[in-house]
C-alpha cells in the first residue's frame, strides 16, 4: 500500500531521495511515468476505485468507478464531493444515497477498528448491483472499492453489512418485494419524480394447476423461466421484482408504455414452456396503476394495481386492466357484502323459499326445490345471483349449504309424505365429499326425514371436481335412497359425458331452452332429445322456468315428465307451503298443460 501511495505522489518520491539531485529531471520524468502507469493499471482494473478523505471529498477515481455509478461524463471529469456524486446517480433511491454516505462515514469514524471486509451492497436497477468496500490507506484518505459483480464481492452470501436486508429473490434472481417496495416508497416521497411512474402487477394464469400436478420443483423451474422471459422484455430503467408466489411486478417510468408492455408480457408468458421434460401452458393477467403527483402513496399504488389485476383475473385472465376509481368502489361494496354475508347465518337473516315441481302426466305435485333467500337489515333482499358466487368464492357456501340441508329437511317433514325436497349442492361442498356426507347424514338424522324424500341437485361444474371420492360419495347417497339430479343440464361443456359418468335420477333441463321455445326450432329439438335420452336412461326430465301454459304443453309434448316454474308458482315461503298445498288440491286442474 505504501508503494502504491508513493507512486501516486511523485513529489514525495523525489524529495525522499537525497543525493539524486543531478538526476532530478530524470526522476521526475520517471515518477510521472510511474504515475501514468499507476493510473493506467487502475484504469484497467475490472472494478471501480475511488479515494476520499474524511470530509467525503473525492481525490481520485478511475473511469470504472464513474461508470459503475452511472455518473454523467461532465461530472466524472471533476472531483466533486461524494454527496454530490451520489445525488447525481439517477437510479439511487434517497435511502440508498443516505446509506452509502452513512456507511462511508461509519467506516471512516471506526478508523483502525473498521472491519476491512465490511461491504455495502446496493441495487441500482435491474441486473445492476454494486458492492462497496472502504479501506483506510493512510494520510487521512480512504479507498472505495466498487465491484459490480465481476469480482467476488457481490457474489458472496447475500448478506449486506449495512444492517439492511437482502434485496434479491433467491429463486429467480429478480429483486424481491422488500426492495421493490423500498424503491416505490422513495419514489412516492419525491412527488415530482414519481409522476408518470406506473406499476404493472403480473399474475400467472393456471400456475397453481401446474404446481399441483407436476410438483413444486417443476413449478419453481417454471417461475425461473417466466422471470427470464419477463426480464428480456424490460428496459434498463425498469424495475422488475418478484412479489412472491407466481406474482411479479414491474415499475416503469412512463405510463404510455404500460399497455403495450402488458400486451407483450402476456404474449411472451402465453407461449408454451418446456420444463424438465414437461410442457406447461400458462398465461398472465396484469393490473396497471399510475402515480399521480403528490396524491398517491406507494401502498395506494400497489393496492390500485392489485384491484386492476383482480378485475383482469375476473374477466377470465389473459388480459390486462388499467385501474379505474370505480374498481375501488366496487371492491369496497364487495368487501361490505362479504362481511355481511359472513354474519348472515348467525344473525338469522337467511330463509328458504320453495318452488313446487309438478308431474305433467298425473298433474300431481312431486316436490319442492329449496331456494336460499337473504334479507339484510339495510341492503334488503339480496339476490342469490349476487351473493351465491361471493359465498362460493370466500368459502362460506359450505356453511350456508349445510344450513340449507338441515333447514330444508326439517321443514319438509311437515309436508305430506309423497312430497320430496330438492337441495342444491355447490361445487365447493362436493369438493369435500366427506364433510358433505356427514352434513347430509346429520340433516336426515336430526329431522327424521326419510332419505327417499331428499333430492340433491348437482351442477355439471361440480362433477368436474378433482376430489376422487365425489362419485363414490354420490353412489353412497343413492344407495341410501337419496335421489341425485343434474342441474342446469345443457349449459356446460360436457353434459352428455357427465350423464355417462353417474346414474342420475333426474335431469333438470336449463331454463334457457324453455325460454327459447317457439322462437327457435333448435330449442324444441334439444328438449325432445334430452327427454328421449332421459327416458332411455330411466331418468326423470324436468323443464325449468316454465312460465306459460303454452310452454308447459310444448315441453310435455316433447316428452318431459315434470315441470317447474312461475306457471305453477313462484318460490313460496316455508310458512305458506301448507296453504299452497291445500289450495292446489282444490284448484290444481288450472295448470292443465293443454290449457
Amino acid at each position, binding site marked *: 500500500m505504501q508503494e502504491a501511495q508513493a507512486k501516486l505522489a511523485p513529489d514525495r518520491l523525489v524529495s525522499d531521495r537525497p543525493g539524486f539531485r543531478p538526476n532530478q529531471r530524470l526522476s521526475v520524468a520517471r515518477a510521472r511515468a510511474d504515475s501514468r502507469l499507476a493510473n493506467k493499471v487502475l484504469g484497467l482494473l475490472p472494478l471501480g476505485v475511488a479515494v476520499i478523505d474524511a470530509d467525503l471529498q473525492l481525490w481520485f477515481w478511475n473511469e470504472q468507478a464513474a461508470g459503475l455509478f452511472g455518473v454523467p461524463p461532465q461530472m466524472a471529469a471533476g472531483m466533486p464531493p461524494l454527496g454530490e456524486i451520489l445525488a447525481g446517480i439517477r437510479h439511487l433511491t434517497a435511502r440508498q444515497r443516505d446509506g452509502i454516505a452513512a456507511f462511508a462515514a461509519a467506516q471512516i469514524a471506526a478508523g483502525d477498528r473498521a472491519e476491512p471486509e465490511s461491504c455495502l451492497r446496493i441495487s441500482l436497477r435491474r441486473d445492476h448491483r454494486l458492492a462497496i468496500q472502504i479501506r483506510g490507506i493512510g494520510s487521512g484518505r480512504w479507498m472505495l472499492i466498487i465491484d459490480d459483480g465481476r469480482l467476488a464481492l457481490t457474489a458472496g452470501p447475500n448478506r449486506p453489512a449495512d444492517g439492511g436486508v437482502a434485496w434479491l429473490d433467491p429463486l429467480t434472481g429478480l429483486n424481491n418485494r422488500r426492495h421493490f417496495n423500498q424503491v416505490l416508497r422513495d419514489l412516492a416521497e419525491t412527488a415530482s419524480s414519481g409522476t408518470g411512474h406506473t406499476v404493472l402487477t403480473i399474475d400467472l394464469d393456471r400456475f397453481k394447476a401446474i404446481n399441483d*400436478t*407436476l410438483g413444486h420443483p417443476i413449478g419453481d423451474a417454471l417461475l425461473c*423461466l417466466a422471470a*427470464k*422471459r419477463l426480464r*428480456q422484455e424490460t428496459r434498463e430503467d425498469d424495475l422488475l421484482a418478484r412479489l412472491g408466489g407466481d406474482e411479479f411486478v414491474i415499475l416503469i417510468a412512463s405510463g404510455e408504455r404500460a399497455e403495450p408492455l402488458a400486451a407483450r408480457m402476456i404474449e*411472451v408468458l402465453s*407461449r*408454451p414452456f*418446456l*420444463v*424438465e*421434460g*414437461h*410442457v406447461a*401452458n400458462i398465461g398472465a393477467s396484469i393490473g396497471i396503476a399510475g402515480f399521480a403527483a403528490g396524491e398517491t402513496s406507494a401502498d395506494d399504488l400497489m393496492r390500485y394495481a392489485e384491484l386492476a389485476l383482480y378485475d383482469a383475473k375476473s374477466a377470465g385472465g389473459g388480459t390486462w386492466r388499467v385501474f379505474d376509481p370505480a374498481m375501488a368502489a366496487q371492491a369496497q361494496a364487495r368487501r361490505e357484502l362479504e362481511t355481511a354475508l359472513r354474519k348472515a347465518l348467525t344473525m338469522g337473516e337467511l330463509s328458504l323459499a320453495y318452488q313446487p315441481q309438478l308431474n305433467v302426466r298425473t298433474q300431481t305435485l312431486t316436490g319442492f326445490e329449496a331456494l336460499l333467500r337473504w334479507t339484510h337489515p339495510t341492503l334488503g333482499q339480496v339476490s342469490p345471483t349476487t351473493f351465491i358466487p361471493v359465498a362460493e368464492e370466500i368459502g362460506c357456501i359450505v356453511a350456508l349449504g349445510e344450513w340449507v340441508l338441515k333447514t330444508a329437511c326439517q321443514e319438509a317433514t311437515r309436508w305430506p309424505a309423497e312430497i320430496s325436497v330438492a337441495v342444491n349442492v355447490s361445487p365447493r361442498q362436493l369438493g369435500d365429499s366427506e364433510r358433505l356426507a356427514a352434513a347430509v347424514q346429520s340433516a336426515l338424522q336430526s329431522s327424521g326425514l326419510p332419505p327417499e324424500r331428499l333430492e340433491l341437485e348437482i351442477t355439471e361444474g361440480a362433477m368436474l371436481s378433482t376430489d376422487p371420492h365425489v362419485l363414490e360419495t354420490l353412489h353412497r347417497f343413492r344407495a341410501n335412497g337419496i335421489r341425485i339430479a343434474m342441474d342446469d343440464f345443457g349449459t356446460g361443456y360436457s353434459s352428455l359425458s357427465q350423464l355417462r359418468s353417474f346414474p342420475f335420477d333426474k335431469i333438470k333441463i336449463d331454463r334457457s331452452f324453455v325460454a327459447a321455445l317457439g322462437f327457435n326450432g333448435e330449442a324444441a329439438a334439444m328438449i325432445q332429445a334430452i327427454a328421449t335420452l332421459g327416458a332411455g336412461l330411466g331418468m326423470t326430465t324436468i323443464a325449468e322456468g316454465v312460465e306459460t301454459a303454452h310452454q308447459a304443453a310444448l315441453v310435455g309434448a316433447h316428452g318431459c315428465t315434470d315441470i317447474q316454474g312461475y306457471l305453477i308458482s313462484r318460490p313460496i315461503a316455508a310458512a305458506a307451503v301448507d296453504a299452497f298445498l291445500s289450495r292446489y288440491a282444490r284448484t290444481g286442474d288450472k295448470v292443465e298443460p293443454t290449457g
Partner: protein
Amino acid sequence: MMKKMHHSGSLYRLIYCSRNMIDRGAPPETEIRAILTASRRNNKLDNITGALLFTASGFAQVLEGPREVVERSFERISGDPRHADVTVLSFTPTERRSFPDWSMGFSGQISPDAADPLVHLLADTTSAGPRVTTGSDVLHLLEQVVQREDEWIPA
C-alpha cells in the same frame, strides 16, 4: 401424469408448429437460409438434430437432442419474432433420433402446386376444438418431405 424422472441429458424429441410472421416483402428464401445457417451453427455444438418444414403459412419443426439442450433451444426459438402462435405438439423422451444425419433438415414448399400442408394444422391449433393433428402426423409429414440441408446451404 408422467412421474418418471428423466435425466436432464436423456434424449428427447420436440415437435412444434407456428405461424409464419416473416414480412411478405422480404424474400423468404433469404430469411430461411439465415435461420438455417444460425441453427446449424448452434445445433452442431449442442448435439441437436431435427427437421424444419417451412411453408407460406407457417413452420413445423422437430428438434431432437439432450432434454436440457432442447428446452434451452426452445426458449430461444419460441421468442423469435419471425413466427407466432407457437404450439407444442409433443415433447417426449425417445430411444432414437428420427433425423440423426443432419443438424437441421429443411423442406421448402413441397411443390408450387401442392396444397400447403400446414394450413389446416395451424387452423387447428388456434381453434378451441379438439386437436386432430398430432405430433406423430407432423413427424411423418416431415420424414416424407425434408431434404438434406446441404442442398440448400453450401457447407
